[in-house]
């Protein structure tokens, strides 16, 4: 009913935003009352329930048991699996937090370059020059490759003894034989570097779309006022990109927090379990060792962390807006 009243009282004038027009149209064409939007939402909601909501609730149930789907008895464990995560004497406690630390480190190291480098790239690619499209394609290209491909590729490039990188460094006179895939801190340099190379094209494309949304007139007006390039960037480009920045930051943080394939293929968690990420350990525990109660409990703890992180990101950008 609310929508109808709105439709009656809100004139669809030239000044109203696109969203208002949408509401007005819906209200005026539907004679079936409030049911219509729900009917339109129903198919998605059904899929959402089947593939997200129900498994999530079921997962919670699993996490309260010693669960192996093939064994007839799945003893109830209460909060046991969660308590194990916080006790050093359990098989999962120490390893889980080690893997969470690995995930946190990777996220911390990888997000800043993944936010800044693609932005710089997008600014360049947004300019007018010959071959612009070719360069856009080139920088986006690695993103098309699967993680298995880039993993195997870089494993051999980065190998300490037979790798291309050290061999090239050697030719430049740097004979350090750096252990890119087997020793800290180099493993982190490798994992972050590979990930930036691999995914920067994706973030750059989103930035590019955002840049193209910023009205040219604002730059022209600034130019008339004699603004410097830096001023234009700081006062027009960045504020104009704010919604895109929120999106890119959130997506990048979540993607980094879910890192799995690069560690699996390039470092195999080495040295020791230093680079075994949370997702990697959860998968090992749940799908490799069939200890699914533990694995789901860990997933939920990870989820809580990710939710908190997302909230923090939104809060951060909201403050910027004010």
């Amino acid at each position, binding site marked *: 009913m609310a929508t109808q009243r709105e439709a009656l009282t809100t004139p669809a004038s030239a000044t109203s935003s696109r969203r208002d027009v949408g509401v007005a149209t819906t209200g005026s064409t539907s004679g079936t009352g409030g049911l219509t939007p729900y009917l339109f939402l129903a198919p998605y909601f059904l899929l959402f329930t089947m593939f997200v909501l129900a498994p999530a609730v079921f997962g919670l149930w699993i996490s309260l048991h010693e669960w192996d789907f093939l064994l007839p008895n799945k003893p109830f464990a209460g909060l046991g699996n969660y308590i194990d995560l916080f006790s050093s004497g359990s098989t999962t406690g120490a390893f889980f937090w080690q893997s969470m630390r690995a995930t946190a480190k990777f996220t911390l190291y990888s997000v800043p370059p993944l936010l800044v480098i693609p932005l710089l790239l997008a600014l360049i690619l947004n300019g007018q020059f010959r071959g612009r499209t070719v360069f856009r394609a080139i920088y986006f290209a690695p993103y098309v490759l699967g993680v298995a491909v880039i993993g195997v590729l870089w494993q051999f490039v980065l190998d300490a003894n037979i790798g291309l990188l050290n061999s090239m460094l050697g030719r430049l006179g740097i004979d350090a034989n750096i252990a890119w895939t087997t020793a800290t801190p180099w493993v982190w340099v490798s994992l972050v570097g590979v990930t930036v190379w691999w995914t920067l094209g994706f973030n750059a494309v989103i930035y590019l779309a955002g840049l193209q949304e910023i009205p040219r007139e604002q730059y022209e007006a600034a130019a008339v006022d004699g603004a410097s390039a830096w001023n234009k960037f700081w006062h027009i480009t960045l504020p104009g990109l704010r919604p895109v920045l929120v999106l890119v930051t959130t997506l990048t943080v979540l993607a980094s927090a879910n890192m799995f394939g690069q560690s699996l293929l390039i470092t195999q968690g080495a040295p*020791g379990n230093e680079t075994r990420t949370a997702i990697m350990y959860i998968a090992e525990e749940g799908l490799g060792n069939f200890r699914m109660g533990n694995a789901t409990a860990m997933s939920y703890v990870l989820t809580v962390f990710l939710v908190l992180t997302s909230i923090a990101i939104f809060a951060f950008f909201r403050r910027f807006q004010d």
Partner: protein
Amino acid sequence: MHNLKHPAPVAFGGGIDRRSFLRLSAGAGVGLALAACGPGSSNAPGASGEQQQSQTGTGDTYDGPAVELAFWNGFTGADGPVMQDLVKQFSSEHDNIAVKMSTQEWADYYQKVPNAVSSGRGPDVGIMHIDQLATNAARNVIQPLDEVAEGLGLDPANFPDAVWNAGVYNDQRFGIPLDIHPLGLYYNKKLMQQAGLDPESPPQDMDSYMQALEALKGEGIQGHWMSPFPFTGVLQFQALIRQFGGDLFNTDATQATYNEGPGVEALTWMVDLVKEGHSPRDVGQDADHVAFQNNKNAFIWNGIWQIAAYRDTDGLEWGVAELPAIGGEQAAWAGSHNFVLMQQRRPEPNKLQAGAVFIKWINEHSLEWAKGGQVPANQMVRDMPEFQELEEQSTFAKELDYVHFPPALPGIGDAMATMDTAVNEAVLLQKEPQQALDDAAATADKLLEENAKKYGA
């Protein structure tokens, strides 16, 4: 990467296996697709009435109505086509049994088969590694084969005790061994010559081995690249610990013993190769193998499955020998592919019988299989002159007297994987061998206890 490695990596409880099970491989999705076209039609491709049935062996024939057997395995390497040819030949010789083989990465396979079986869409026949049998038996994925084994007239005397016994869980047999694939010594003749060593007599004990490494070192060659990863580092550790007179677990597998004296000696020897410059530091995954192929690494302890890879390497002059007895005793790590029959919701006796005929036929024709880089489990095949003519395979076959397998215990892979971390940390010089092994063993003990409870209940 997988083509560099053995088609078997999943089985041996290595972290790499576990870690690679989600490897986004091309095989993903195959299982479901195939599960969807399960049993049903039985029109065998190429099966025509004119073809003669040529039964070998003791004539366990199948005379029932035509059936189709789904046969799953993880032979994604060079071994795949070999098995496919055997299956084709079998089908052409058996009008009423059509075998449909499907292959996916072992990592995917071990994850999908239990799912497929539990939803009633599993295959009829499969292959599993010997250290997977107990776990899959306890999880109701595979069914006991005692009657089948008896009906086939397989003589236990024809199989090495170690492999025959490792297929038994809870007094029931779950696997019929097809092959054994041990770790052996590959040596680079060119590098040995360069160091003034006789390329026809590779070192076979501690003293001669170390002398050879010193001689190589004198020529600036790092003779034994030590991998910190399951392939090949952890396999070497498993061989060495037995050579030093130790074992991975105590007799009833309730406790890890790999951190006792022999384990520490074994790992210390491995680490010392790095410290003394016989191996570079920080050897990456497969770097030892690639270095061997490129005349940089003189000795590599690798699986028999690499024969084909080295044979196909241009400019590589190589030979094979039994593992040198570094620890005093002769001992080697080995894996083994076993035939299994999957649990079925609706058992079909015809398929069971046809499956048995298939298993026996392949077993008896495993000479072809051996050519791909395996030792046939069946002694009747090993005794064939044609097998003796396979120089490398028959050399490695000598190790059968002293190969070791992990205990037939469900979930043993979880406990085995703890060793991967220890070997990794020690060989990468992050921890002292004793410390690394103690830390890992503490986890292993807890896992063994939890698994005893989980599978014992």
